[in-house]
């Protein structure tokens, strides 16, 4: 699959082929890889943050209420968060379609 973002000419390619924009991988959505998604049961959650610290894709952020929410743009559905949650508050649910 061609990466359209990388279609630059030799005159417009960045100097030395450096990437000048730090952390621009956020423009690459890895959520498409997912076949299951984590679903949180707030009733069970104790807001310990284990899901956050153990996510290999930095998908989780903490909401104002203190819960941790995974960003489906990046979550690859690995299931670590559900597996490591001490309260079994996360369930992995198969993605539709």
């Amino acid at each position, binding site marked *: 699959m061609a990466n359209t973002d*990388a*279609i630059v000419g*030799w005159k417009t390619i960045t100097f*030395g082929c*450096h*990437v000048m924009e*730090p952390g621009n991988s956020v423009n690459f959505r890895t959520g498409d890889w997912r076949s299951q998604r984590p679903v949180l049961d707030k009733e069970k959650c104790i807001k310990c943050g284990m899901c956050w610290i153990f996510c290999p894709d930095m998908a989780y952020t903490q909401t104002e209420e203190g819960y941790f929410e995974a960003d489906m743009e990046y979550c690859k559905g690995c299931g670590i968060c559900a597996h490591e949650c001490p309260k079994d508050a996360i369930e992995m649910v198969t993605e539709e379609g």
Partner: protein
Amino acid sequence: MAKRVGIEVSIAIAEAAKLARSEVIPAYPITPQTHIVEHLSEFVASGELDAEFIPVESEHAAMSCCCGSSAAGARTFTSSSSQGLSLMSEILYIPSTMRLPIVMVVANRALSAPISIWNDHQDIMVQRDIGWIQTFAENGQEAFDLTLHAFRVAEDRRVSLPMIVNIDGFTLSHVIEPIEILSQEEVDGYLPPFKPRYKLDPKKPITMGPVGIPEVYTEAKMAHSEAIKASKRVIIKAWQEFADMFGRQYNPVETYRCEDADVMLVTMGSISETAMTAVDKMREAGQQVGLVRIRLWRPFPSQEFRRAAGKAKVLAVIDRCLPPGAVCGPVGAELRSLFYKVPGSPKIFSFVAGLGGRDVTVERFEEIVDKARAYAKKRPRELFEVIGVREK
């Protein structure tokens, strides 16, 4: 003010790297380059030069350190030779496409086997396509001057490419010559401080050396290739300024007694001095012989070479490198393709001489010219010929 001193060429090169205010010098010993870095380490130890001398554990590490140091924004110098240069090989291709302006002096030496510490050009010809700017020095003064010129060109923001100055091992590196050593003030006037276009800096983080996916690899290489082609103008301009400031003029290609010459010898490096003596001798005997010397090897100065040698009937090209199984030596091949199907262009004959420290004497040059004349009349069986080899 500049002062003229009798000095070993290696020490003069170390002086040049010191006067250039080199900041990081990763180096590993190998004959015949060692004197250069030994002297630099002394300058650092004595406080004459404020730099970091890194006594690395191999040449591969030396070049790797150079990449890190140049990317972090320091003026970076190293020197190597032969087996050491070959050990660096994997890394050499990297700073050029990444546009890191490292300066390296290569004391040219043969490659094993059999192991030989003596001079020829096999070590650098293996590295022909690393994408560095490359010059060849003929004598000690030139070695000193070209080293300063290398910093000036490599670090020019329009160029930003690494650069090699080739000097012949022993025949140049270890001889004592009268050399005019420029003063610090003079060098500072010629060489501005290094201001990299990009560097590793937490205040402005960039990613250097990403994965070149197929969509971009060709463009990255093309950008590099065009950059080195475009560097020729800066190279020539920096030589012009050098001439204006210090009175010594350098050109990409030099000619010696080429006016009306039908046969021209083509050389690179220090054997050109003997070649000139040979030309004088042949001229005295009434032969129309001249010499063309290539100083700038990469980017190859095509126009300049055509202008210098295009009128010759015969070019006798001397390669200091034997490429087993090839059609001819690398310089010969370069010139054959340069003149391919150009109407009225000279016939080109390729000779291999001066391998592993074998002297190329005046008589050998005469032999080469004679053979080239004969081949112009009757095509030789072989496309290149090894000169001065014992047939038994």
